[in-house]
């Protein structure tokens, strides 16, 4: 059978980093084709190339056997390719209805947008899809993430695509909503169209996909009918080696009680509710739970970013008021935060590696406000060597580094502050295995030197393998504390879904590792 869409030998580089390396992919009509792989394996880049958002450096694309050049999303739409983007393509100031029919709104006989028909049609269309809870007159900016995802899906479907691409398009949806989307996908398959489906949730992939293609390091490494390859084996293909113990040994002694950080009754709006815990000297304390249960806010609250935080924070036994990151990093407190988004929060991409590394410690190399370049350079060289950051020179921009080296730059910045407490948000996301390894060793070494580490991760194996204890957050509360034998992936999943906490079966499933 002739494939509906076929991509051959696609290569794409960003500033020297290879995102796709002669990757090929084909999908048949009447099928649901899953793309799986680790973060940074190149799936999203392929999606963007197929939908005309990114232009490949090399390679060919055929649609129904005809070679095509997809150099804009307009062309992709015309070719019948519709995409649901991971980062969403919605305009926040426009209504749901306007977003859904943004390129083809119903028109009056004068050729103007027929607003009545627009809302009528949007309401009807959303109902047909089973998304009747979404109000067509609401502004996108007013909606929660889950509803935005539904709108993004509806928008892609409104162009009546022959090929629908869902790039993590269901990550914020509840089980029920996911099943509604699955029904839509099955309907498309029945109409002899195809769906390209990207998800981190292996359950979903195995449930819905006909064919699975695995991506690793920018290449397609295997393609097979769903159900013919076991999960273990798939994971091995994704990471390219056998699963092995990659984590450094945990601390032998139980936490000898020298609490660095004590939190009592921390609350912030509805997002954080009465959070209390203590972090000991030399401890790696994990934060678990589904993403978006308050972990980000907890770290930001501790780091002085949020206003109106209630509760008490004690550092080394003294109560502290932390009202800004500058205060958090100051001498008496010595907190460090590695934030969620490396590219917008952790780094200043257009600035040199050197300037990024010393941004948090400028005062150390300044005398009377003037920079002492030799001292600065010495510190930079030292930490670059310590972390084995691969840079041609400290004066190249951070933008030109690979993801792993970029994250090392963020770590280097905070190492120089000699922080005693590290707040880490999913710092291994999208990073190659080798670098992950190094980061794990580094974290344990820091803890052994007496630092306390509070560590949120979406990767369950990290939480299990690396942490001494894990606090699980659910709806802004600590729903469980796991340690020792109880610290297992099964228990993490169960408590993350709030099951032990309140016994509810049906709860929102968000992105899991």
């Amino acid at each position, binding site marked *: 059978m002739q494939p509906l869409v076929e991509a051959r030998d696609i290569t794409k580089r960003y500033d020297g980093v290879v995102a796709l390396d002669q990757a090929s992919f084909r999908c048949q009509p009447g099928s649901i084709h899953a793309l799986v792989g680790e973060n940074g394996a190149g799936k999203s880049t392929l999606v963007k190339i197929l939908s005309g958002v990114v232009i490949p450096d090399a390679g060919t694309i055929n649609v129904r056997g005809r070679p095509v050049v997809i150099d804009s999303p307009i062309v992709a739409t015309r070719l019948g390719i519709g995409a649901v983007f991971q980062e969403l393509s919605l305009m926040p100031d426009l209504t749901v209805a306007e977003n859904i029919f943004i390129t083809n709104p119903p028109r009056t006989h004068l050729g103007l947008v027929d607003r009545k028909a627009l809302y009528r049609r949007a309401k009807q269309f959303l109902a047909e899809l089973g998304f009747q809870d979404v109000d067509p007159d609401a502004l996108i900016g007013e909606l929660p993430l889950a509803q935005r995802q539904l709108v993004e899906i509806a928008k892609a479907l409104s162009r009546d695509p022959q090929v629908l691409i869902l790039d993590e398009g269901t990550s914020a949806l509840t089980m029920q909503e996911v099943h509604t989307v699955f029904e839509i996908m099955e309907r498309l398959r029945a109409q002899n169209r195809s769906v390209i489906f990207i998800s981190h949730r292996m359950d979903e992939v195995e449930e819905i996909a006909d064919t699975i293609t695995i991506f690793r390091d920018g290449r397609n490494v295997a393609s097979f009918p769903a159900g013919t390859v076991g999960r273990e084996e798939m994971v091995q293909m994704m990471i390219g080696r056998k699963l092995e113990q990659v984590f450094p040994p945990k601390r032998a002694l139980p936490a000898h009680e020298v609490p660095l950080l004590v939190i009592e009754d921390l609350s912030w709006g509805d997002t954080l509710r009465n959070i209390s815990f203590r972090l000991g000297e030399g401890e790696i304390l994990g934060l678990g739970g589904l993403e978006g249960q308050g972990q980000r806010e907890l770290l930001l609250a501790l780091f002085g970013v949020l206003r109106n935080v209630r509760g008490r924070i004690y550092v080394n036994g003294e109560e502290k008021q932390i009202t800004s990151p500058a205060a958090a990093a100051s001498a008496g407190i010595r907190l460090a935060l590695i934030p969620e988004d490396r590219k917008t929060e952790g780094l200043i991409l257009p*600035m040199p590696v050197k300037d990024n590394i010393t*941004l948090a410690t400028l005062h150390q190399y300044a005398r009377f406000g003037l920079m002492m370049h030799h001292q600065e350079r010495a510190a930079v060289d030292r930490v670059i060597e310590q972390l084995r950051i691969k840079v041609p020179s400290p004066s190249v921009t951070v933008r030109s580094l690979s993801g792993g080296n970029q994250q090392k730059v963020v770590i280097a910045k905070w190492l120089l*502050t000699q922080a005693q407490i590290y707040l880490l948000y999913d710092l291994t996301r999208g990073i190659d295995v080798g670098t992950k390894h190094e980061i794990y060793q580094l974290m344990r070494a820091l803890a052994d030197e007496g630092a306390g580490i509070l560590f949120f991760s979406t990767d369950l194996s990290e939480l299990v393998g690396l942490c001494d204890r894990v606090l699980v957050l659910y709806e802004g509360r600590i729903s469980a504390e796991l340690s020792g034998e109880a610290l297992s992936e099964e228990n993490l999943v169960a408590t993350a879904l709030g099951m032990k906490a309140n016994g509810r079966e049906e709860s929102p499933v968000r992105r899991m590792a």
Partner: protein
Amino acid sequence: MVTTSRAWLSLHRWLRGLNQEQRSVVIAYLMIVAIVGLGSLIMPQFASPNYLLLQLMKASFLGAVAAGQMMVILTGNIDLSVSWTLNLAAVMVTSIAQGQNERLWLGVLAGLAVGLIVGLLNGLGVAYLRIPSLVLTLGMDAVVKGVTVLYTGAQPKGESPELLNLIVHHKVWGGLPSVVLVWTAISLFCFIVLHRSALGRKIYAVGNNEICAYLSGVKSHRVLISAFVLSGLMNAIAGILLVGYAGRSFNGMGEPYLLPSIAAVVIGGTNILGGSGLYMGTVAGAIIITLLESTLSIMQISQAGRNIIYGLVILGMLFLYGRGSQIRE
């Protein structure tokens, strides 16, 4: 012929080896050479030291304003309150000094205070109230204008103290106008602040990505306020110098400096969105604009023609520096 083409080639190669910031500055200085060359074709004494020093003197006032404007632009903001801050500072000098040399220092102090206060208010509004600087400084300009008009009663009174005139028109080392020395001092100060100090590093960091800077412990509010205060002070200094240059203050004297100050910064290769640009570029920008003005007036081109050429030069320089990125990756 061969040697020139080889020179071009090596120049071209050298330019390609530079980053965009450096390349812009080099192009800007080449532009100065080109204008001087063009000028001396029309008027042989154009390239004479005396004439060029006169041009530098004229460029000094704009140079001071542009230096402050650059600080603000680097943080990702803009200062549209230049005109009347400069004006009110100038008015303060003449009205408080009342033409008496012994009161000059009082006038200068009052002028600097104007710059400091306006800059502080701008900075507070941008840093804490988060009002877009474009409209905040626009409103501030209107208020300062109101204060000036009210204070002066339509037309400023008082004259510049003789001492100030002498200082401004004084020539040191047989020909170098002292104003140029002041500008040099300002430039040295700005160069050190931007390229050798911790504050400078923070200004670039905030201009590129305030969130990251803030999360790295940079007190970004203070950085923003510092930039606006420096801008206010630079405007005040320009106003004070202009009083000495013109011998008086008058309402409207700051208006010819607003848009040229922005143009000078941008022609010097600073990104209008902030975060990148070298100080020496802004010096070049101020000189280019001044030389262009003079060349065109020597060529007896009307004000109309000058405006048109002026606009075309700004656009042309921007195209030479390279364009922004496209939306698609």
